[in-house]
């Protein structure tokens, strides 16, 4: 019973990964919109883009990690 609950929890935590994907998509979409409006400034901001994506993605990875812990370590 305990294990099955853990698996349900893992599934719920896994949803966090998808929600983080929304965040990453948001970062990329806004970057693209800005880049199309001012293409000359885009090249200098790719580093910022990757930093933003990394921060957004890290939180998704946290929820993925929780899912893994529930699946395999509880």
């Amino acid at each position: 019973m305990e294990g099955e609950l853990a698996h349900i929890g893992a599934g719920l935590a896994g949803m966090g990964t998808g929600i983080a994907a929304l965040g990453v998509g948001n970062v990329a979409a806004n970057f693209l919109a800005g880049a199309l409006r001012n293409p000359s400034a885009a090249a200098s901001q790719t580093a910022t883009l990757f930093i933003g994506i990394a921060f957004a993605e890290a939180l998704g990875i946290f929820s993925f990690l929780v899912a893994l812990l529930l699946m395999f370590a509880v």
Partner: protein
Amino acid sequence: MATETHDAGQAAADMAHGAAQGGVGMPQLDFSTFPNQVFWLAVTLVVIYLVLSRVALPRIGGILAERTGTITNDLAAAEDLKAKAVEAEEAYNQALADARSEAQRIAAEARAEIQADLDDAIAKADAEIAAKTAESEKAIAEIRAGALESIQTVAKDTTAEIVGALGFQADDAAVAGAIADRMKG
């Protein structure tokens, strides 16, 4: 934390299970392998750091600097050649301008010489013409004076005749004075 210590405690058993059954559980949380991984990671990082900082990076940096140097040198040489070409062109232009001004100078000189000759000739001609004119004027004046004298003589004679014919004694001096008066007009 409880889970983790539990895991660490059971690590050896876990490993045995893992080898036997294909393992369930996260190998990442198997703390018994941590010292091993950290040790080998430290060795690896130290080796990479030494290789990079002692050999690879100075060498690649050197290559890049050398390439930049070569390119800069080549550019400088090209710049030099270009400057030389510009210099040569300037010298050519200078020579051209010199030749042109020399030619102009010679032409002006020749023109001045000719002008001087011309002026000379004109002056000489002018002087000759003036001399001739003066001579002619003198001749004309002589002729005119001659003519006036003749007129006076004729007038005097005529007057004396006319006066005699009218029965008067002509006074020479009075006649001469009257004629001179009339001639003045």
